[in-house]
Structures are given as structure tokens and as C-alpha cells.
């Protein structure tokens, strides 16, 4: 028997909620929401109040900024100790350029600026055309000619005197430029159905990823000369570059492999049904999508490679970290090593932070097709 239809009774609508803008509601919501939160806020504020004023006093108010050793010592011995940023003002050329001859230091400066300019240009999407490769070839050529000299009337400077910031930039950029295509090939090889190629790629990746970078650098600098026929010598810089490239390529290969694995199989099947061959599928369908998926991890590896150049200090190449050790061999300034180290840490921080923000930007930019909001 049909039941009596239920008539929906409407209720009078409530007034709209009041907007909760303003500073006080924000503070209440974010800082004082519940007892644990209040406790944490109080604790952290106490910590900040205890720690920040002395740091500001030490670092800014009582600090000595000019390259004045006597003033620095006085500031350090005073009851309100002050930092000695004068050590940076005094030694910045040694820190930035290492043992490069003093009068020729404009050359590494220009070379560095060119390299950083090329990197910045490559970050800008409208520049991703074919001529970018030509630009890179030009910039790399200019970099090495400027640093090595011997042509165009430039005084030759041997590679053992290169140091500081140009060395860091050169090692990271060149090793990444070579490692990236190598990594793609190795990752593709690892996915291959051919057992021989797959084994070679797996062995390479697992072997290199399993050992610390230091041992790869030691192997490159001690053992590479033994591998070469009698009479040929490889430059120390080239050896270190080979070691770093092989190392970075192994890590990048794993990252790219993650992207290749995450790609739905349907893409390859669709490409095959369209009649595309292996290499066409790879370059036109698989790689663009796979690389897009792993942008965060790739940028992480790039940042890691930039930081790992500091390890060449241990094989006695004076990059930014090593040049700092050199600069502070001077007995007069040795007490102010801490300020020097903070300065170099700040340089690394600025570059790595910029790279990580760029990584976020490019991830957002490239994933417009897959974004969900």
C-alpha cells in the first residue's frame, strides 16, 4: 500500500557566519588553539627571547665589518663579544678564487658570471629552443678558455691553481650536463628486455650507488692514472670530474627509472598501436611524461650534486669549502674561522635555496596538464 509521501519541512535559514579575519582571530586560531598549543607557543617564545637578542648583538650590533685585525681582536676579547665579519672583507678574494693569480682574477669572475647567466637562461621556459645547446657550447668554451688561458693573449694558468667558486660551479655544471643524458640511457637500459644490456646497467647503478662519493673520488684520483697507458696523464680536475659524473649519473638513473615506472603502460601500448618504433616512442611519448613526473627528485639530485662538490676538498682540490681552509691558514685570522664558515654556508644556502624554490616553480609550471585544481 503506498505510504503517505513525506513532505520536506524547510527550516528558516540562519544568518551567514561572520568573517573571521583580523589579527586577533588569526593568533587565536594558529597559536592559542588548545592547551598543548598554548604551551608550545610559550616555550618557543621563551626560546626565541633567550636566543635571538644575543645573536643579533653578536652578529650585527657589536660586530666589526671592516678588514681590521686589531678591532676584531678587541671585539672578540670584549665582554660583549662581537663577530668579525672583517675576515670576509679581508679574505674574500682568496675564498672566492682560491690560489688563482691575483691580477688575473677578473677571468674567473667573468667565467663564473657567464656560467651563471647560461644557467639562468636555461631556467626560463621561452628559451627552451635548439639554440640553447649552441649557447651552452659557446659558454663552456668561453669558460675554459678564460680559466686556462694560453689563447687570445691570456696568461696560461694551470688547473691546480683553479679554486673557489668557479671550481664549484664548473664541477657541478659540467658533471650534471654529462650525467643527465647518461642517466637517461642507463635508466632506459635498465628497463630494456635485453638481458645483457639490463645486467650492465643494473651492475653499474648498484655498484656506484652502494659506495660513498669519497671512495669514488679516491678511486678516480688514485687509480685512474694506473688505468691509462704509460705516458698519458690525466689532469686531476678531469679525474675528479669523471668520478663525480659517474656518481651523479647513477643517482639520476634511479630517479629517471622511477619516472619511467610510474608511467601508465597504456601510453606505450597506444604509441605501439600508432606504429611508432622504440626510439620514437621513447623520445616523443615516454620521456616527456616521465621526466615531468620526477622533476622534484631530479632537482633534489641537482642540489645534491652542487653540495657534493664540497667533497673535493678531501682530494686537495680547493673549491669553495677548501679555499676557506686555505684562507684561514693565516695565523692572524684563525680565531675568526667561524665567521668565515658562516659566510661560505650562507653562499651555499642562497644557491641551494634558490634552486629548491625554482624546483617548486617548475614543477607547478610543467604539471599544468595534470593539476587537479
Amino acid at each position, binding site marked *: 500500500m503506498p505510504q503517505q509521501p513525506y513532505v520536506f519541512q524547510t527550516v528558516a535559514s540562519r544568518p551567514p557566519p561572520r568573517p573571521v579575519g583580523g589579527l586577533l582571530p588569526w593568533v587565536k586560531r594558529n597559536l592559542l588553539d588548545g592547551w598543548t598549543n598554548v604551551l608550545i607557543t610559550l616555550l618557543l617564545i621563551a626560546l626565541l627571547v633567550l636566543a635571538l637578542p644575543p645573536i643579533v648583538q653578536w652578529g650585527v650590533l657589536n660586530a666589526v665589518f671592516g678588514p681590521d685585525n686589531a678591532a676584531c681582536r678587541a671585539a672578540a676579547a670584549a665582554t660583549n663579544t662581537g663577530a668579525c665579519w672583517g675576515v670576509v672583507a679581508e679574505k674574500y678574494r682568496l675564498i672566492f678564487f682560491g690560489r688563482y693569480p691575483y691580477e688575473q682574477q677578473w677571468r674567473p669572475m667573468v667565467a663564473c658570471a657567464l656560467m651563471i647567466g647560461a644557467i639562468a637562461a636555461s631556467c626560463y621556459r621561452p628559451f627552451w629552443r635548439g639554440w640553447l645547446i649552441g649557447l651552452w657550447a659557446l659558454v663552456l668554451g668561453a669558460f675554459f678558455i678564460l680559466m686556462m688561458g694560453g689563447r687570445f693573449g691570456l696568461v696560461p694558468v694551470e688547473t691546480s691553481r683553479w679554486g673557489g667558486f668557479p671550481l664549484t660551479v664548473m664541477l657541478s655544471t659540467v658533471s650534471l650536463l654529462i650525467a643527465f643524458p647518461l642517466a637517461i640511457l642507463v635508466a632506459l637500459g635498465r628497463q630494456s628486455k635485453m638481458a645483457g644490456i639490463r645486467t650492465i646497467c643494473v651492475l653499474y647503478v648498484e655498484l656506484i650507488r652502494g659506495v660513498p662519493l669519497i671512495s669514488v673520488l679516491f678511486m678516480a684520483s688514485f687509480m685512474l692514472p694506473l688505468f*691509462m697507458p704509460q705516458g698519458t696523464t690525466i689532469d686531476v680536475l678531469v679525474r675528479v670530474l669523471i668520478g663525480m659524473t659517474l656518481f651523479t649519473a647513477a643517482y639520476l638513473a634511479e630517479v629517471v627509472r622511477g619516472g619511467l615506472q610510474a608511467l601508465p603502460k597504456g601510453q606505450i601500448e597506444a604509441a605501439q598501436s600508432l606504429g611508432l618504433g622504440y626510439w620514437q616512442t621513447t623520445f616523443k611519448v615516454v620521456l616527456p611524461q616521465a621526466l615531468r613526473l620526477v622533476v622534484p627528485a631530479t632537482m633534489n639530485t641537482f642540489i645534491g650534486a652542487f653540495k657534493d662538490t664540497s667533497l673535493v676538498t678531501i682530494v686537495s682540490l680547493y673549491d669553495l669549502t677548501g679555499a676557506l681552509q686555505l684562507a684561514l691558514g693565516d695565523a692572524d685570522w684563525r680565531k675568526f674561522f667561524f665567521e668565515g664558515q658562516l659566510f661560505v654556508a650562507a653562499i651555499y644556502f642562497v644557491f641551494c635555496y634558490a634552486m629548491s624554490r625554482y624546483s617548486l616553480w617548475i614543477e607547478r609550471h610543467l604539471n599544468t596538464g595534470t593539476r587537479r585544481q
Partner: protein
Amino acid sequence: MKPARPAPPKKRDWSWRSQALRSVLYQVLALALVFSAGYYLLGNTLENMRLRGIKSGFDFITQPAGFGIGESIIPFDSAESYGKAFAVGLSNTLRVAVVGIVLATLLGTLIGIGRLSRNVLLRSLCGAYVEFFRNVPLLLQLFIWYFILTETLPTIEEALRPLPGVFFSKNGLQFPVPVWADSHIFTLAGFGLGLLGAWWWGRQTRQHFEATGRSRPVWLPGLLLVMGMGLLGWLAGGSPAALDIPEKSELNVVGGGSVTPEYMTVLVGLTIYTAAYIAEIVRGGIQAVPFGQHEASAALGLSRGKEVRLVLLPQALRVIIPPVTSQYLNLTKNSSLAVAVGYPDLVSISTTSLNQTGRAIECIALIMACYLTLSLLTSWYMNAYNRRSLLKER
């Protein structure tokens, strides 16, 4: 229905344009290239070593080392062999790696959870921590910590004495350690029994929960049980309370246990650096759990604690564990940087042996073999875990 046609005769297609042939050809070429390159390099190496009169072979492992090692948990004398020196180096590496992994996990988890807190102050501080320590190279951080520990601490003559018997100076931290007496066996037995009891109690509470839905406290009784049984065991052994207390001698402080500034530098530096990475991974893992899970558990009436334990954490762990395992591996490999601050780990002792004997290839091969073994074991475990927990696709 039509009768089925006879199957076509099977033949391997070996024409010049078939994929089968090409694949075999490519593999042969690739292997030939790799082998000939390897043969070339090996030939050069052997020729060079012969020409230069460099000896090779692993016979140096049994020779006496001739050098001392500054700190180790295994006592080492300079007359013992190179092999023993390598073992000491490996023990030093493991000593800093294991403690570092535990501390880094704790610190990293706390900071990762802190980054998701509602408190904006906590969130920003944790964010600042992660950003700062991830973007500065580890070597530089180790140098900074070493500088802090060796410059700001007083010399051994004016050591800090926070507690009686504890010395804190440039020479490190020295503290009293209990002397091992045989009756300590009872204490250990007590702890063992306590652990068994705690595990059994945990099982009981879980079974009770599954049967009735009511939960009993697990952690506090378990902890009390372990402590209590340990105490009973110690009393049963006659309460051996002998302590090895460090005392000042003419030049140094002798006795007791000690940790050197090198060890502290490597430990603190590695912990703080790896914790920053683990914090990001934990945060990513917790955020990867779909919000619907939280809504569903709220709909079921689970408290926040139960929700985290029973719903969020198991799902988050599946995302967290593989990258965290590779961070553990990174920590172990990064401990090789200890050579720069003077901590005698495996790489440091291997470089010393390399310099003293000249056997570069053998020493470097040994380091790589040790680290490779550790990495392959971990990586094999991780792959097995990955395969088990992968979402199955076609």
C-alpha cells in the same frame, strides 16, 4: 563451426631485419664493448704496476699495522695486523651510524610532525630548520661543529665538571661507566625476562582488544616490567656498583668511558643533517594519506590517538619506509666524511693503510666492498618490501 586450421609451422625468424636478431646483436656488441674496455684497463694497470715495481696483493692484511688508532671500542695495539685495523674502522663506522640512525629518526619524526602542526610558530621554526640544514653541504656542517666543539670548549686542565666524575673539554666527554662484574649477568637476565614479559603483555592486550573492544595500557606496564625485572636481577646479583670514574692524571683524564670531539662532531652533524631529510619524508608520508581516511575515522568515532595509530600511520609508513631506508643508507655512507675531521672510521683507516703500504687498489677495493655489502643488503630488503606493498597494476 569451421574446423580449426592446422597451426603454422614453428620457425625462428632469423632474417636480417627481425627484432630477435637485432636484440642479440646489440647485446653482443654492448658486452663486447664493456669487456674489451675492461680488458684494456686491466692490461694497462698490470703493465703499469709491473713497470713501476709496485707490489700488489692482499698479503699486507696480516702484516702488523704499525700505527695506533685514537679511539675504538675494540682495544687495538700498533703491533696488530692491518686486518684488525680495518675491523676497528668498521666498528667505529657502525658505532656512529647506528646511534646516528636512531637519533636522526627520532629528531626527524618530531620535526616532520612539527611541520604539520597547527601552531604557526612551531611550523615556521621546523620549516626553517629543514631549509637551513638541507641546503648547506654536510662537510661544511661537520667543519662548523668541529670548530664549535674544539674552540669553545675549555682545555683539559680547565674542563667543565657538570656532574661529579664527568669531564667536558676539548678532549671530549668523559664519564663514569660501570665496571663489568660477573654478577651483572643477572641484571642482563632480568632485562631479558622483562622484555619477554612486556612482549607477552602486549600480545595479551591486543587479543583482549580484538575480543572485547576494550583497550588496556600497554607501554607503561611494559616499561615498568622491564625496569623492575632489571632491578631485581641487579639486586639478585649482589648489587655490584663499582664504577670506573675518570680521574685527572698529570696530562690527561684517564679512566671511565669517553667520547672524543671527533665522534661527537660526526654524530651531531650526521644526525642533524639526516633528520632534516627524514622530517621532509615523514611530512610527505603523512600528507600522502588521503583526507578521506581522516574523515572516515572521525565518522567511526576514533580518537585522534587511535586514528593516528591504527589508520594514518600504517598507510603513511608504506610511503615513508623506502625513502627513509635510503636515508639510513645515506647516513652510513656520509659517515665516511669523518676522515676530514679526524675520526678513525673505515675510510680514514683505509687511507692511512693505503698511504703506509702503497696498495691503493686493494685498500680502496676493501672500502668499496664493505659499503657495497651494506648497501646491497639494505637495497635487497627494500626491494622485497616494495614488491610486497606495491599497488598491483597490470
